[in-house]
């Protein structure tokens, strides 16, 4: 029924394609794979991926405005309509068993003739004193999750990306004041979001500044800047980009860039045959849900093509 449909899951089977990930890239890849009549299974740690943590998505063609969760609900409906099995689990390692791959989780193992790695990325940490100590006590990496705790309070967002701007706009709906603290001259949000930020009276941008410490007693009370100044805040939202989840791929020899992104070609192929990658984990210069979806779809097609080529009889 929901996300572990045991009826359509067969652990003995060697799947044509196992997709790793639970974000838009993985689901899009699986939808196309199912439509190419491939036996496909998705194993994802968190359904929805990163996009599900955003309050508003207004750049996905065909959908004028929805929430990240709303978008992923639509993806889920689409996935369910094709009876694609989805497992909530984390793949720990991939083993090359000759004709096929074995994917190991703590709970099960899955056999796959081909794999698409769509494991996205992890939020990057600042690595400053107070960050770990106050995690969950004023330090947050998810505005939609934790925003409700800061009604009428003062918060800051560290980072100047489009995501940071969107988080600021979301938080500004309910907090008293949002400071965006950015290390460079000007935030680099999509112009449409940047304009909204500048027009929002509750949002103030502090440029050319780094936070060097988060301070408090039991909860966050203030942040200290590299110029020695301090700012009193109740919450610190950290939005400074992310690190690709490419470690399991690296361990079986998939090539990655110096930023740890999986290197793919225009067919979403990696350097290892039968292993494809797509979305935020891969090395595209511009990463969005729609670009991940497109790469995921290409990966499905390439897997289909690959399986035709290798013609494995089971």
């Amino acid at each position, binding site marked *: 029924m929901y996300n572990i449909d*045991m009826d359509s899951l067969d652990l003995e089977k060697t799947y044509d394609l196992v997709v790793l990930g639970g974000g838009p890239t993985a689901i899009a890849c699986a939808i196309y794979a199912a439509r190419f009549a491939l036996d496909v299974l998705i194993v994802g740690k968190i359904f929805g991926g990163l996009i599900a943590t955003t309050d508003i998505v207004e750049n996905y063609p065909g959908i004028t405005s929805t929430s990240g969760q709303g978008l992923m609900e639509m993806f889920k409906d689409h996935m369910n309509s094709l009876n694609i099995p989805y497992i909530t689990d984390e793949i720990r390692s991939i083993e090359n068993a000759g004709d096929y791959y074995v994917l190991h989780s703590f709970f099960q193992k899955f056999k796959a003739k081909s794999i698409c790695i769509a494991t996205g990325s992890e939020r990057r940490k600042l690595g400053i004193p107070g960050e770990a100590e106050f995690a*969950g006590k004023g330090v947050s990496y*998810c505005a939609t999750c934790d925003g*409700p705790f800061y009604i009428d309070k003062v918060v800051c967002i560290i980072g100047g990306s489009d995501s940071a701007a969107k988080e600021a706009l979301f938080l500004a709906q309910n907090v008293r004041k949002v400071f965006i603290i950015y290390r460079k001259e000007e935030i680099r949000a999509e112009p449409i979001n940047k304009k909204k930020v500048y027009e929002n009276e509750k949002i103030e941008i502090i440029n050319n500044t780094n936070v060097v410490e988060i301070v408090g007693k039991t909860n966050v009370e203030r942040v200290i800047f590299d110029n020695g100044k301090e700012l009193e805040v109740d919450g610190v939202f950290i939005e400074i980009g992310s690190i690709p989840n490419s470690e399991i791929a690296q361990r079986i020899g998939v090539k990655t860039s110096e930023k740890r992104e999986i290197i793919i070609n225009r067919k979403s192929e990696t350097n290892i045959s039968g292993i494809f990658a797509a979305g935020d984990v891969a090395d595209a210069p511009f990463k969005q849900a729609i670009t991940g979806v497109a790469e995921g779809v290409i990966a499905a097609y390439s897997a289909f093509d690959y399986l035709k080529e290798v013609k494995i009889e089971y």
Partner: protein
Amino acid sequence: MPLAYIFTKLIRDEMIKLTKPVELSLFMGNNIEDNENVRSVLKIYEESSNELLSIIEVSDPIIAKNYDVKHFPAILFINNEGKELIRYLAKPFGAEIRPFIDAISTFSGDPNYYESVIKENIEKIKPSIIKVMITNSCAYCPEIITFVNKFAIASKGKIKSVIIDIMAHPDISESHDVSSVPYTIINDKKTFIGMVGPEEVLQELIGGN
């Protein structure tokens, strides 16, 4: 399309797939509005289930005391032996619909992905309560709820899961000093802030002995 319509449709589309009978208990307190809020949502589940889901309304304080229900309204999954497996101090609507339906279907006897591993380790797991504090805007909460409920069902109640909407029960969140969700607490000791996977929770349940 209004969200309430989308969510109601989701319940109808999914509950129709239920194949075995299930009974849930709704423990009601003194706040009529709160009771009605949850009852009306459960009605949608019940009415969409081909008469396979029955909601038993409980207002007897003695039964509530027997199950140690102090916060209302509370939805309890109680097995044939009268043992509580899952408790919801949250309205199963919005993002909480899918994990709730999943719990219902697993509770009805549908296959459980974690059953074999929980059974293998059941001797090593001491009786445990996993509390998951959530808000309805938290994207990661449904994922944790899904597997902790399945752990509870697979363990036949040796592990109990309690799902708490902290906006509806601020006193509980304050007593645990919660300012971030999902916030998972095992046996009122070990806490996980943010997303935590089934493996880490299971290891805590085993290692926590």
